[in-house]
């Protein structure tokens, strides 16, 4: 019973919302659109994972700014772990997107604005992790990786903003294709879509929380040795 009493309300909410999005996502009726058909259900997973990822990356940038103004190891840990979990969500979002693309576009990878944007996002954060890995001293690591994180995040947002203007896209919502957002999504879809975003975001924060605890335990074990 102690285990249940100490679990916070938002973790329970995360489980409920993610379960709701999976069950509701597969069972509730969706609008019948040309080309998309039943694959529109991917909105509940692919798009929400990406939303959650972008929010996690934004949190990571905010904590990088905090690290620069106030170099506590706590701020740096949050910045690093949100980037880690964001990267994990990004890979999941990429895989779900690729499976979807195979059934609607006919190939796992097409030369498209959105797929390329994804690849760049992942590359930037892999570079961030490589940078973190290359520095031994923890204070220096916090400072330098925070600088790169801020710089790269701003460039990434710009990149995602510029790219659609430079190239046309096949992705729903661009170039006259049926969109997942805006007018094509009816109210029953919204009822699953928005809770699903919150659910995956909370799940991500939970994972971040666990990773930070794991770090603390490891530090303690190392100190004891």
């Amino acid at each position: 019973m102690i285990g249940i009493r100490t679990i916070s309300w938002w973790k329970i909410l995360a489980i409920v919302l993610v379960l709701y999005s999976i069950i509701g996502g597969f069972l509730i009726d969706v609008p019948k659109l040309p080309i998309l058909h039943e694959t529109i259900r991917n909105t509940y997973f692919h798009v929400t994972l990406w939303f959650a990822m972008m929010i996690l990356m934004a949190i990571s940038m905010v904590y990088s700014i905090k690290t620069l103004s106030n170099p506590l190891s706590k701020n740096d840990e949050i910045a690093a772990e949100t980037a880690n979990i964001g990267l994990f969500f990004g890979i999941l979002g990429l895989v779900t997107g690729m499976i979807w693309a195979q059934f609607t576009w006919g190939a796992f990878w097409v030369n498209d604005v959105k797929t390329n944007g994804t690849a760049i996002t992942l590359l930037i954060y892999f570079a961030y992790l490589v940078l973190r890995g290359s520095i031994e001293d923890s204070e220096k690591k916090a400072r330098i990786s925070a600088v790169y994180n801020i710089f790269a995040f701003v460039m990434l947002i710009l990149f995602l903003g510029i790219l659609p203007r430079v190239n046309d896209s096949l992705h729903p919502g661009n170039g006259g294709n049926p969109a997942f957002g805006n007018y094509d999504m009816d109210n029953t879809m919204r009822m699953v879509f928005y809770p699903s975003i919150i659910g995956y975001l909370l799940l991500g924060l939970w994972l971040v929380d666990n990773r930070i605890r794991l770090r603390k335990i490891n530090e303690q074990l190392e100190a004891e040795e």
Partner: protein
Amino acid sequence: MKFLRQSLGLSAHFLSLELRNKNAFFGLLIYAVSTVFVTYLSTQGFVSENIYAALIWILLLFISINAAGKSFLQTNDGLHLFYFQSVPPNVYLLGKHLFTAGLVLILILGVSGLCMALFSPHIESYLGYFGALILGATGFAFTIGFLSAVAQTAAGNFTMVSILSFPVLLPFFLTQVKLMNLSLVSQNINLELKYIGILFLLNLLVLGLSLVLFPYLWRD
């Protein structure tokens, strides 16, 4: 004004340091010329417009990384301490930026001149063509220069510069390729001005961001 004058003075100082050791510059020049020539030999000089735009920017990307990536790596610890005590960080960064931008601009204009001679592309609009080259050179120089400062404080090796800068350079890269492609096939001044505007804003943004963030790298 004092800020700008100090930065200009510092970049002149970097220039005199570079001129004292001409080997590095001529090494870069030979590297640039030989990569262009290898590309020419392997394509036989026959490339379509969009391939030309892509090829020249891939060449310029690698050449700029080699030129600008070393801008912070060369400074050794003693010299670094000297600069640290003599000038504020932003003056130092702007001085480096001005020097690197000049170096990359010279290299890029030279390489593109060589490419124009070898591949003889049909240029419809010189505004777009040279706009892409000049703003591209400054953008590459600022971004790679700043990230080489990051790499220098982190690991101090050259591989890190390319790992950090490739993904971040892509907004520049794609806009430049698009603009150059446009200038080779049509004379659409309005669209070209739009891309030039995007490049200009990107330049300003990178410059501003690096000036804000550099003091945090500077401390050790």
